[in-house]
């Protein structure tokens, strides 16, 4: 929000109700997920969501470090969200910052809700989310990829967490904001959702919305999470159908 204003003559939503990248207000960017992309990790996933490119890797359950953090009754889900220095237009100064710490924290909390942490006392399940290319909505992309990676790692879970954002752009409620919409828009609500039980495990809001706008936005995001969920499930199933068919090239499923 803030910063340089939108250049003159560019409209975030045109007279036909189309968005800057040609999408309708309730349309997702193309989403593609592939599970099991890293050999050395216990579980992994690669995700492309519009211009976002994210890799998630899961290690464990393994011995918890630092030791004073271990819980004698359950496992810890520790996320590490990191943006590559080349992931944005201006080089991002590498290393943890306020924003990445926040995202790591909320992702851990969202995932802790679905993992059966009590099965692995005194251990830690480490989730690494690396953003290779960012284009708005990376916390949703990261959470979506991380839950696929957790399932791929064979960790017992109640369900997958699907995630998507909605927001307000040029006084219209839209789904899955792109970079320009995020920068010059009015509000953004990322949502993490468990489709089976219809529970919300992540909800944030940046910007101002009326209660009605918020409800519309939340509803749109929740519906979108259900679509994201289907892509996640498909990615996991495809990993093993391909393995048994001995096909090397991975197919891709896209959501439009």
């Amino acid at each position, binding site marked *: 929000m803030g910063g340089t204003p939108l250049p003159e003559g560019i409209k975030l939503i045109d007279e036909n109700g189309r968005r800057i990248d040609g999408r309708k207000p309730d349309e997702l960017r193309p989403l593609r997920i592939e599970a099991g992309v890293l050999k050395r990790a216990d579980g992994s996933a690669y995700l492309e969501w519009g211009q976002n490119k994210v890799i998630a890797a899961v290690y464990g359950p393994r011995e918890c470090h630092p030791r004073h953090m271990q819980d004698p009754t359950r496992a810890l889900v520790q996320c590490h969200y990191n943006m590559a220095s080349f992931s944005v237009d201006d080089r991002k100064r590498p290393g943890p910052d306020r924003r990445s710490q926040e995202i790591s924290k909320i992702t851990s909390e969202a995932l802790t809700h*679905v993992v059966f942490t009590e099965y692995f006392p005194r251990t830690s399940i480490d989730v690494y989310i690396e953003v290779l290319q960012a284009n708005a909505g990376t916390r949703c992309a990261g959470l979506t990829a991380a839950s696929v990676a957790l*399932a791929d790692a064979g*960790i017992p*879970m109640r369900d997958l967490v699907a995630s998507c954002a909605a927001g307000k752009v040029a006084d219209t409620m839209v789904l899955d904001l792109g970079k320009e919409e995020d920068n010059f828009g009015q509000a953004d609500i990322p949502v993490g959702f468990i489709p089976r039980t219809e529970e919300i495990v992540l909800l944030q809001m940046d910007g101002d919305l009326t209660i009605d706008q918020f409800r519309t936005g939340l509803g749109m995001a929740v519906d979108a999470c259900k679509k994201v969920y289907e892509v996640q*499930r498909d990615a996991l*199933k495809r990993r093993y159908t391909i393995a048994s068919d001995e096909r090397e090239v991975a197919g891709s499923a896209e959501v439009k």
Partner: protein
Amino acid sequence: MQRNDNRESAREIVVPGDLLADRGMKAGPGTYIEDGNIFASLLGIKSVRSNTVGVVPLSGQYVPIRGDMVIGKIVDIGASNWLVDINAPHPSPLHVNEVPWRVEFGETDRFMTVGDLVLLKVVGVDELGRVQISMKEHGLRKLAGGMVFEVAPAKVPRVIGRSGSMIQILKNLTGCRIHVGQNGRIWIDGDLDNILNAVEAIKLIEKEAHSKGLTEKVKNLLERASKKGA
């Protein structure tokens, strides 16, 4: 053998959160119950046997269970115990009372030292995930010679096969001595060519763990290998 193949063709991959069955079935491994319904908690293959529904995992770390035979590596020595890495989240202590020798206090290093490999049994796991291991049962011992390599713990049941059929084939056709630990470690001893053949075969099993006619493929591989050698 035939039955095994039939079971394979009916396999269905399930994802955590998938509904497996409602009331009337028993919840097997890899599942959880909510409101009387049974859901999958793991990514794996749905298996229904009589009235129990479960999920056979396709991946995952080794989780020790009472009765498992495992291959451990000594990582530290205490005055009255050894610390053994059994490929579980935490190393487990092996107390001197749990070995077949009489060990004086402080003389643990005369029997086994860091780096030694041992064949063990898990005799108990408490609710804190602490594992009790023993070497006192028949057949358990320190593993001298041979070589050890690791496969994914989820693939171990395929290496062993139905009531040991696969491992029997490996032993018969290579003439090697083989121990398969539930923790994914496999110990092989024999002459070098045979060891290499066995390793090749086990790699094939791991790679194609869930494909049909695996036993036949392994048999062919080993028979070809032994002809080449002769």
